[in-house]
């Protein structure tokens, strides 16, 4: 593998770090599948790359559901493995939403990624994959990303009345909803 030392996110502020850490090499993803997706969606596909032997598509947020539909019904990616998010608070489009897809017939796993701003509500993927229901609820619970047109958009792991979203980077690992704990458990703090 060629040792390309190019950072994945070029817009990284270099103020606090004198030298950016090395990055895993990223190569363009070539083949029939990325070509047909690019042909179908044109500019909505921002990137089709392979990194560490795993291929992914970076997609504009408004096109995600139609890309998923295309992959599901035209390209036979019939299994949604996971939906998750990654928080980059210093970015304008704060969250990465990552969909991991697998196709039984092609025996291929790909990722579809998109970036959304904190005030945006991405479209729910439940109409395309039923699995997305609980997975998106968990993303909402942990990151506070509300999915539009989700049949049951509420918390899943934390109590419904809980305040705060623990996997956001600004939430400290010790942070908790003290009010909820006091009210419901009758103790000052769970720590």
């Amino acid at each position, binding site marked *: 593998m060629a040792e390309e030392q190019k950072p994945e996110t070029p817009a990284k502020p270099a103020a606090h770090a004198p030298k950016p850490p090395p990055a*895993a090499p990223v190569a363009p993803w070539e083949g029939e599948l990325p070509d047909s997706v690019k042909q179908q969606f044109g500019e909505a596909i921002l990137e089709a790359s392979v*990194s560490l032997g795993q291929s992914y598509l970076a997609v504009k947020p408004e096109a995600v559901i139609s890309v998923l539909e295309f992959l599901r019904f035209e390209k036979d990616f019939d299994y949604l*493995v996971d939906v998750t998010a990654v928080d980059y608070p210093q970015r304008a489009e704060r969250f990465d939403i990552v969909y991991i897809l697998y196709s039984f017939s092609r025996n291929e796993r790909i990722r579809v990624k998109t970036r959304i701003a904190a005030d945006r509500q991405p479209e729910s993927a439940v109409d395309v994959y*039923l699995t997305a229901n609980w997975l998106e609820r968990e993303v909402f619970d942990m990151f506070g990303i509300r999915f539009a047109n989700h049949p049951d958009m509420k918390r*899943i*792991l934390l109590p419904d009345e809980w305040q705060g979203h623990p996997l956001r980077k600004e939430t400290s690992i010790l942070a908790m909803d003290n009010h909820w704990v006091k009210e419901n458990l009758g103790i000052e703090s769970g720590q």
Partner: protein
Amino acid sequence: MPDTTFLDATELVLNMGPQHPSTHGVLRVILKLDGEKVIGTECVIGYLHRGVEKIAENRTYAMFAPYVDRMDYVAAVSNGLGYCLAVEKLLSVEAPPRAQAVRVTLTELNRIASHLLWLGTHALDIGAITPLFYTLREREEVLKIFEKYCGARLTTHAFRIGGLQYEIYEDFERDVNAFCDMFLPKVDEYEELLTNNRIWRRRLIGVGILKAEDCKQYGVTGPVLRAAGVKWDIRKALPYSGYEKYDFEIPTARNADTYDRYVVRMAEMQQSVRIIRQAVAGIPEGPIMAKVPKVIKPPVGEAYVSIEAPKGELGYFVVSDGSTQPYRVRIRPPSFVNLQALDRMCRGALVADVVAIIGTIDIVLGEIDR
């Protein structure tokens, strides 16, 4: 509740759990009933939420490894393997062949231990007490091997990023082979107790059907998917840790009901013995650790790696920002995703069947709630 509840004379909302022995932990299921018939369910989960993914962001890569054992605590070895493989992927290193053979041996032993616990408790839920004593007796032998190998029985922390911490002990091969010889006839013993047992069959056949199409829609994997006739196993489809070298079958069944899942898991245990025998016979000489730096700092990037855990696809999505701590670790637990199909499987069934269906999905709440 899936449909809006209107309480009339025939409808009843019943809380099952979280403190109910047949929910295998702290699962709460809100049942909407019409007499004995289930017309809708809602799962309430999260009672065991410990914020494992948040902890990961505040620990170094090596420090986080013991935490993953606490998710699916009956299959801790599988959890550890998945995490190590994901970090190794980010580091672009591979465990040496000797470490891989030991990893496969221990992981398959753990699959047997996990399936044994499932079998015992599932049978207990249905009303058969005897199998539990038998399965725990055999599971004990597996745990003894773990204890001799790494000092722990359940939360083993057996593997390290890049290979193994411990060399196998002197009689490891002998112990494992002795277990295999002892165990295979025991499977027949369980089958004698259950397979043609009239009560067992009447309680399981045709209960909790989830067809292949629905499995894919709900993302259900593992024995539940294979019982629906889909011959899919990550060990074969996307092999890891040298599984491609071993000769084994993927057991499947056709009827997609609770009984077929029992048949599939029983056959899986026998296949695991087959893999263990091959792996332990061919443990190559050589180092047990790949070249991994003392301070693990993977290059900036992200990777998703999944393994076939006893319960289905267990995946780790790890994002590195080039520092010593992971930027994000997402754990894709099989139980969490499989449990989502509970509502579909329970509709139209009887209350007693709900117990059987929860048992047949084989959930572990530690993994669902993380």
